[in-house]
């Protein structure tokens, strides 16, 4: 996260600012990541029955595209576009002495907790009905 430049929101905003002075760094980060992950996934990981030290692969089995996916992604995009920060670089930056990172981290965790509580509440309602 640090080496790629993604821990600096200016690089992220620069990539998202398509009509301004475009900074392509993020594209190279994604490209570099996929260049490693994709072949490894299809050639090495997918043919395996199970992971090396666990019993099973914990991969989402959800198939269809629903409003939660679209809505959630849009809300994430809104937050990401506002500050140029997303979860990965935030965690990587926690020990680097930037107070704003901690503000973001704590409010992000608040968001997780709110949604988890909402989910539990909805599940309880379903199980009672």
């Amino acid at each position: 996260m640090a080496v790629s430049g993604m821990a600096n929101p200016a690089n992220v905003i620069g990539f998202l600012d398509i009509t301004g002075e475009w900074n392509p760094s993020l594209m190279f980060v994604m490209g570099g990541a996929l260049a490693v992950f994709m072949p490894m996934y299809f050639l090495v990981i997918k043919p395996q029955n199970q992971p090396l030290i666990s019993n099973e692969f914990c991969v989402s089995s959800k198939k269809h595209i629903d409003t939660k996916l679209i809505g959630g992604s849009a809300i994430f995009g809104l937050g990401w576009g506002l500050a140029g920060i997303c979860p990965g670089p935030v965690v990587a930056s926690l020990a680097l002495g930037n107070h704003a990172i901690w503000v973001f981290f704590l409010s992000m965790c608040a968001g997780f907790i709110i949604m988890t509580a909402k989910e539990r509440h909805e599940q309880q309602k379903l199980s009672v009905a």
Partner: protein
Amino acid sequence: MIEVIPWHSLLGGALLGLSATLLLLVNGKIAGISGILSGLLKAEKSDFSWRLMFVIGMVAGGVWGATAFSADVPIQFETPLWLVAVAGLLVGVGTKMGNGCTSGHGICGIGRLSPRSIIATCVFMTVAAAVVFVRLHLI
């Protein structure tokens, strides 16, 4: 057009890809940071230690990357703190609802050619770009 290839970005990305490969191959888990964190907060005993180890690794890695590679990590942001807080909340809510972020959907999901992740990534990229456009060029 691109005149200089940002090699550090490619390298950083490759490291992310390696990290995701290892976590999936060895532990069978998707390296989606929002998912790993929100699961950590649920504090379920059986599911806790790998998440904690990964987060510790990321924090340590961030320090190593910033110091050993003198990486581009600012100490302060230009964005006002109240906006950072709002953005954080939106990211927390959005990634939990949408079941992933740039690492989960963008790298691991697209890497597996998951239609859900491809669409999710398109949505959050488009929205984020629109927000940046409004903030930098319209307001």
